[in-house]
């Protein structure tokens, strides 16, 4: 499929059905990118670290759930997978991160990259190179819900619905629960938080647990549509990072909008570029943002300068 | 001859006016001191002068050029060099190498010449090395040439950083709290050193809290408070200035 440029007639035949398909695909992927970005932001806000292994949590969620589904019903498999991912997230923090004393940014970047490779290779050896997917939660891959000319799979609703619920729960958690407020305090000023008796070390672990959990759940819910493979994580990490930067690093509300924007742009790019270049589009957007406005569309330029890099 | 002319310089950080409409000038061959309580904007002013910060408005005229929009390396190339309030030597490099960096602008060997190690570059390196050793001898720290810079005693590090700035062969030397952390004897020696430097023809602008040093060697003093200039005069007049006394109420004169 060489793209629409080689078939000029197609340009004139873009109709509602095609448009809506691209849109829906964009929204679906965009939602996942946004969840990955929120995961980045949670850890970044608590620690100042960019966790390059973020994408691996999504991959692990899907892969573990698929394996567990062989021995337990779907909801239980998903729940167990998410819990296991959260435990892995906690273990990563405790084993690799907790005991480091003021590590440099460069060191942290390389460590998390190493962790991401380690998880990837472990996944390769456990599950091989094959692609896997959970079954569609409701119906099959041919079930559609039709609204006029627009046909969408119910799984799309599962993706957006689950993500919306996760975002709502996170917002509630950070705004109204004591633990959430403690995490925000820790993110705003770690020393002051410690002086108030908040265990900052536990807050850091909690941030990893939360990021892993939402990533894993996203991985489960999107796997019927996109399939997962041992190396699905890296691409997601780059795109999730792009979204996080686009919205302003640390700003999860903006990440949602930014995720949808990236998903839609990427989706529509298939219209003019060969599909093989879909990833090139999102990376080019990343580079563009980094060169022009690294504080993101919604971030404040001064605030981004103040963060130590 | 006026070597530095600062006019209506402004710099604001969010809600704080760090430097507000500051104007003064420095005469060539003199020693001018910049004093004021903590937070008065002195280091910010230095950062503006040396190009590390862009001003919001105002001009900085150095000899014949307007330098307020230049990068630090361009300002240095014009003949202004500086030291830092918190010593910024190059760790993992010897004292001699730190001084040799100061000679960077006065040597030429580039990438290609460096990789090929051409004969003229070797000669140039030798010259740079000798000149740097001379500077260290002038400052009395030649014995530490091959010691790692940050393992020197604090007072020696201050002198080393001064040497590095001198190696640039500046016309104007900005010294940011050269006596900070030095004891009385070391401070007196620093004062003598700065005078000797001025005697070689280099103009000195210094920020300092130690009043004995300031009053002893300065030809003129500028006083800042909350980013505003409140006085600009000879040392004796500054000591009698009521505004200055008010700002320093409770501190030693």
């Amino acid at each position, binding site marked *: 499929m060489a793209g629409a440029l080689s078939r000029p007639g197609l340009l004139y035949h873009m109709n509602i059905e095609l448009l809506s398909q691209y849109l829906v695909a964009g929204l679906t992927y965009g939602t996942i990118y946004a969840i990955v970005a929120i995961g980045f932001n949670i850890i970044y806000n608590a620690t100042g670290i960019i966790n390059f292994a973020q994408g691996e949590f999504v991959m692990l969620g899907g892969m573990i759930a698929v394996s567990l589904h062989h021995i337990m019903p779907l909801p239980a498999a998903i729940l167990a997978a998410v819990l296991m991912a959260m435990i892995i997230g906690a273990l990563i923090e405790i084993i690799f991160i907790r005991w480091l004393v003021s590590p440099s940014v460069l060191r942290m970047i390389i460590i998390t990259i190493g962790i991401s490779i*380690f998880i990837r290779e472990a996944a390769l050896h456990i599950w091989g190179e094959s692609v896997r997917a959970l079954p569609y939660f409701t119906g099959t891959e041919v079930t559609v819900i039709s609204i006029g000319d627009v046909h969408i799979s119910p799984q799309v609703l599962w993706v957006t619905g689950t993500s919306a619920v996760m975002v709502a729960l996170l917002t509630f958690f950070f705004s109204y629960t004591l633990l959430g407020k403690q995490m925000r305090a820790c993110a705003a000023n770690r020393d002051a938080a410690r002086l108030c008796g908040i265990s900052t070390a536990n807050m850091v672990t909690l941030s990893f647990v939360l990021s892993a959990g939402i990533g894993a759940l996203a991985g489960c819910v999107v796997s019927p549509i996109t399939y997962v493979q041992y190396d699905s994580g890296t691409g997601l990490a780059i795109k999730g990072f792009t979204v996080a930067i686009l919205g302003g690093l640390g700003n999860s509300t903006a990440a949602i909008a930014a995720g949808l924007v990236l998903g839609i742009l990427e989706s529509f790019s298939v219209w003019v570029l060969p599909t093989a270049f879909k990833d090139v589009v999102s990376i080019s957007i990343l580079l563009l943002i980094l060169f022009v406005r690294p504080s993101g569309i919604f971030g404040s330029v001064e605030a981004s300068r103040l963060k130590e890099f | 001859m006026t070597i530095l002319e600062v006019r209506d310089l402004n710099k604001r950080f969010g809600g704080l006016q760090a430097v507000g409409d500051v104007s003064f000038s420095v005469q060539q061959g003199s020693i001018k001191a910049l004093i004021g309580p903590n937070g008065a904007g002195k280091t910010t002013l230095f950062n503006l002068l040396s190009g590390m910060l862009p001003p919001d408005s105002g001009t900085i005229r150095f000899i014949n050029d307007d330098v307020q929009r230049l990068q630090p390396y361009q300002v240095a190339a014009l003949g202004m060099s500086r030291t830092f309030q918190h010593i910024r030597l190059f760790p993992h490099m010897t004292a001699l190498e730190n001084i040799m960096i100061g000679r960077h602008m006065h040597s030429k060997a580039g990438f290609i010449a460096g990789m090929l190690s051409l004969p003229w570059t070797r000669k140039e390196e030798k010259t740079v090395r000798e000149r740097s050793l001379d500077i260290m001898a002038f400052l009395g720290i030649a014995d530490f040439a091959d010691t790692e810079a940050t393992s020197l005693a604090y007072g020696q590090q201050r002198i080393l950083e001064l040497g590095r700035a001198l190696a640039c062969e500046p016309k104007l030397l900005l010294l940011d709290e050269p006596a900070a952390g030095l004891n009385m004897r070391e401070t007196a020696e620093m004062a003598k050193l700065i005078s000797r430097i001025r005697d070689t023809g280099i103009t000195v602008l210094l920020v300092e809290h130690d009043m004995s040093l300031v009053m002893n060697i300065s030809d003129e003093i500028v006083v800042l408070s909350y980013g505003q200039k409140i006085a600009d005069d000879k040392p004796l007049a500054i000591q009698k200035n009521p505004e200055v006394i008010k700002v320093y109420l409770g501190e030693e004169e």
Partner: protein
Amino acid sequence: MVRSRYIPVALFAFSIIAVQLLTALTDRAQFLTQLTMTGYYSLVIIGLCMLIGYAGQISLGHAGFFAIGGYASAFLTTYNLAPHKEKPVISIFAKTGLLLNVQDLYGGDTLVFNPWLACIAAVAVTVLIAYVIGGPVLKLKGHYLAMATLGFGTIVYKVVLGTSFFGAADGLSDIPGFRLLPGLEVSGKTSIRIQNYYISWGMVLLGMLLLTNLINSRVGRALRSIHSAEDAANAMGINTGRYKLNIFVLSAVFAALGGVFLTHYNGGIGPSEASIMKSVRYVAIVAIGGMANLWGALSMGIILNFLSLRGYFGSYDDAVFGVILILIMLFAPEGLLRREVFRGAKKWLSGRGKAEGQKA
């Protein structure tokens, strides 16, 4: 006048010859193949070591430059211009030897670029891309710089993977040998195996010589000052932006040359040479070698790449480098072969010598 900095270079030259003779004596001449390949990978590593260790800039996309060099040269030396040979530019090029007449697999006549010209073009393209990318990228710091270089490497990977011009997933093959001089050719032919070993390691030797000179020169000093305190370096009149860019381009050229030569030696190149895993591997080797230790990076690169090429790591190849990276960064972030370790060893040895001298 023997300068101490050239002693390791001389030892290195000696070892190169010694290893080759050893393989001949022990009838292990087949090792020469992997050793030759290791040499070309070493070019990438020493260039990267300058960038990361001396200028302090991380690059997680350097395999991209290796691939640009390799693919450019591969493409130009295999793309058949014979259908266009009537056009004036093409025929002039052909007459002056810039284009060569090569027999393809089916005995037909093809017109392709002279490998020398292809090599120069590949390096030129690399320099251009490195300058264009490096300018904005090097203004970034920390995470942003790492991600930008990672993104660059990934773009190169996706482009060569997805373009049929570049052979897509299969890459380009049947790359002709590179005749450097009459009698000296870079190619995988077993008959000239020894010659190719020396070409490869000769280039590495030359590279080490040039870089050792650079480190000990005015530029090397400036780079180290930029790495340790960039603001102060700037205040001393060093145009830090331009220096960082130049060292970035230099390291890219080293990588590209490695790519060009290895492609001719292997007779082909595939998209995996541009992958993130390769880039990470290069960074891991520089890290374990000591960040700012050129000889450390070289020796670690030789050992690890050779073992990897011989298949000692099996299917855990990528995992090994990932684990190395983690362990080094956790426990020895300055790298294993730190200069301090060597200085300490030297001091200890000379202290013992003194004591013994006193006893006697």
